[in-house]
């Protein structure tokens, strides 16, 4: 109970501070749509069959899950920046010296980030529908569920790594080095099946590749298959492992 009270307290504070930045709200709404609007239409002109189907709808069913994962990847790994400036402002210490649950300092923030990402994802899907995406509603709900799991895991790790590094100059290159290859190896823009064997082999290490495959399967109307099982297992496992790793930095006696 106390943990939930504390989590909601941190959540409300973080949400309130976020909503006070109008520039952020505009950026948060526009940014996820850029790829959809400026890159998506290219895919619909590819030769039929390249993206696994023959129609424009197939292209959007391929592309939107990829964009959702891209949103999750970038949206949640960059949250750590905010905690570095909060640490510098003395806010982390201020909280740690009160009886508040130290884990709630993390969970309240992650909850805020998950909510932000889900709202962005819904917006992305809606605009996708306007462009020609047709997917069953349950599939969209499933894809949002995946986004929640990805966000929980990545945001937790992002916060804890940032809190350990305490330097934007170290954090930014680290994030780029990790996230860009992960994104490329997930088949977000184009199917990995187009690539040579060695690339497909390397891509097996990217957890997001399994999650995207599961989402694409759902968008095509197939829920009960091995792709979905793998995707769910990977997403739940990733979230759990990352959450545990992330918690450790916040539960440490000294920070």
């Amino acid at each position, binding site marked *: 109970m106390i943990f939930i009270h504390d989590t909601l307290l941190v959540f409300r*504070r973080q949400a309130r501070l976020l909503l006070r930045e109008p520039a952020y709200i505009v950026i948060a709404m526009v940014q996820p749509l850029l790829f959809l609007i400026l890159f998506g239409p290219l895919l619909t002109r590819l030769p039929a069959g390249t993206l696994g189907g023959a129609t424009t709808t197939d292209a959007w069913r391929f592309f939107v899950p990829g964009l959702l994962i891209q949103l999750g990847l970038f949206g949640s790994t960059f949250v750590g920046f905010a905690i570095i400036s909060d640490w510098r402002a003395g*806010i982390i210490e201020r909280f740690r010296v009160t009886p508040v649950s130290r884990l709630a300092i993390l969970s309240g923030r992650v909850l805020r980030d998950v909510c932000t990402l889900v709202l962005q994802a819904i917006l992305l899907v809606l605009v996708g529908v306007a462009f020609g995406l047709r997917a069953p509603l349950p599939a969209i709900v499933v894809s949002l569920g995946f986004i929640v799991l990805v966000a929980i895991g990545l945001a937790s790790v992002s916060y804890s790594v940032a809190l350990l590094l305490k330097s934007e100059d170290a954090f930014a290159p680290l994030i780029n080095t990790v996230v860009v290859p992960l994104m490329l190896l997930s088949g977000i823009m184009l199917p990995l099946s187009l690539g040579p064997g060695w690339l497909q082999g390397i891509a097996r290490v990217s957890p997001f590749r399994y999650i995207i495959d599961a989402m694409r399967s759902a968008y095509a109307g197939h829920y009960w298959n091995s792709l979905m099982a793998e995707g769910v297992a990977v997403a739940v496992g990733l979230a759990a492992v990352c959450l545990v790793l992330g918690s450790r930095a916040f539960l440490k006696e*000294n920070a």
Partner: protein
Amino acid sequence: MPIIEASGLARTFKSRKRVVHAVRGVDLTVDEGEIVGFLGPNGAGKTTTLRMLTTLLRPTEGRATVAGADLLKDPLGVRRRIGFVPQAIGQTMGGTDNQAKVIEELHDQAALYRIAAADGARRADLLLRQLDLSGLGDRLVKTLSGGQRRRLEIALGLVHEPQVVFLDEPTTGLDPQSRSNLWGHIRRLRSELGTTVFLTTHYLEEADALCDRVIIIDNGVTVATGTPDELKRHVSGDVVTLKVSGQAAQASTLLAAQPVVRDVAESDEGLRLTVEHGEEALPALLRVLDGAGITISSISLSRPTLDDVFLTLTGRSLRDDSPSSAASRDAAGATGQPDLAAAASGE
């Protein structure tokens, strides 16, 4: 009754194959209702000690009780009963968010201590009035002046009416007027609420004006404690400067023979005597010179400053901008002290 009791408190940091003893052994006692100043040169272990006493850093050795709770066994109990106002300069700031409103910071802080919303709102209003922040509740923190912001940070440390409040360099970076204004608030904290105040400071005049008692730390060990007056008397002694017309050498010999005189030095300004209990010794010294027929043209008595105490005890000046402290910083650099700060924050 002691409200803070620490014995053998120590903290070592391991960084890159080197072990740094930031604090080697702090023994201290603070009684209820005292205002205690914790002084030490840069890198002496002040902040590390403060972070240990406020549960931000786990001691590697020693034990302490703070406000009746055991630091190691019941850190949560300590956190409930203490207030902490971090230092507002250097690597990290005082803990307020630029984008938050003043009143939101106070309400959030009350909620962190699990104070019910209605009580929290009442406490917040009271603190705004007590700390001269009335009417600023709806302002964003970033629009506050330095002094206002510091008072807000102090208000945050008081929102749950703690038995003891730790202030890390409460007035550093403030202009003299804001500083003396803040001293008034800190004194009232004790006189009206009976709160115990444990503060670190770089300003000797602050320790002198504000603190009932001073604890001095050097090289990670507490080296002296006492009221500012006691320390000045015991450690340094008073300084009498006098000028005689001619016969300086004779006067010097005569005075040096007096039991109350610790030391005599001749300078351009005349004779400089270090004596115990200056105002009582002065008449006797005058009689001695008078009896020898030596004419005094001028005489002055000056009390030692805490900085004199500091120099005597630690060989370093507390003043940041003085040459002796710059020299000590260089010396510290040679022994790897700057890494200490990095290790302390990196932990």
